[in-house]
């Protein structure tokens, strides 16, 4: 087993726990809406975006509304635009893997691939690929198992989903402790809190990221002027 795979596996263990739980919840949800297990499995494989899959699963039972689905998906997923801008440099020179890296750029893969300090001996492009692949794999497996077992799943441990919260806290902390200036990370939190209370839970994510771009533009112009 390559050292790249080992590191990627180690870094994604929390995501395995989180995605197994959330993926199964999603499969179970689709099962209870009356769908064959192939629906959650294939949707997990092709859309690969947690909250959109729940929304689309629900929309499948209503009247055909292509523009509605397009708009909703665009709103939920517009945050990926900002991930893409952040990964332009890092995903350069990754060869054929690049298409897959971009395809699989969910919150978790972006965060791990951005925040992990990769040792010199590790080939970055392999590490990025394995992280993306493992996260995809965990999510699809979870959705498939949830869809297959459906109501057979009787056990339920409350609170396991906190693993994702803890993951993002730890990634943020690593960034915070290691950065020289805290302006960006603190401003991000402040803008997110403000937008959450002003614009509500559906829209605050893209809005706060857009506001952050605005703040950075002002700073950029200032630095340029100096």
């Amino acid at each position: 087993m390559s050292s790249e795979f080992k590191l990627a596996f180690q870094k994604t263990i929390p995501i395995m726990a989180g995605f197994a739980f959330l993926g199964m919840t999603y499969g179970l949800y689709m099962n209870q809406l009356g769908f064959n297990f192939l629906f959650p499995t294939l949707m997990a494989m092709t859309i690969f975006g947690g909250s959109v899959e729940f929304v689309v699963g629900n929309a499948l039972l209503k009247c055909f509304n292509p523009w509605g689905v397009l708009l909703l998906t665009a709103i939920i997923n517009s945050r990926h635009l900002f991930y893409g801008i952040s990964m332009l440099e890092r995903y350069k020179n990754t060869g054929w893997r690049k298409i897959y890296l971009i395809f699989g750029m969910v919150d978790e893969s972006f965060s791990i691939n951005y925040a992990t300090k990769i040792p010199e001996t590790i080939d970055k492009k392999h590490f990025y690929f394995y992280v993306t692949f493992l996260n995809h794999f965990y999510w699809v497996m979870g959705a498939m198992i949830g869809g297959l077992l459906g109501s057979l799943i009787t056990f339920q441990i409350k609170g396991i989903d906190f693993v994702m919260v803890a993951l993002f806290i730890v990634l943020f902390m690593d960034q915070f402790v290691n950065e020289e200036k805290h302006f960006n990370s603190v401003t991000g939190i402040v803008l997110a809190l403000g937008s959450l209370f002003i614009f509500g839970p559906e829209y605050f994510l893209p809005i706060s990221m857009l506001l952050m771009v605005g703040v950075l533009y002002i700073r950029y112009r200032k630095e340029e002027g100096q």
Partner: protein
Amino acid sequence: MTFTEQLCTIAIAVLTTMASRFLPFMIFNGKKPTPDFVSYLGNNLPPAILGILVVYCYKSQLLHSSHDTLLAVIAGLLTIGVHLYKKNMLISILVGTLSYVALVYLT
């Protein structure tokens, strides 16, 4: 909705999601030099995004303060504490999650 309409709905979700992920790479594809400000964003946006994602995790607890808000905040602070002390991602996440599960069951 017919089966074909269902497939169309899923296809729209797939294409829209892919557009959100591929667009930046298609626009700034390296054929022309990437604008300075975009590179500047690439360096300065991620710390803010990580902060925004932490708030995202807490959105429902923050909007509806309840018993769970307190538990999630305690477990979050524990995660931070253990992480500052041990600096080991897996241990911090394990302790944070187990303490949250324990709090949910005990209180």
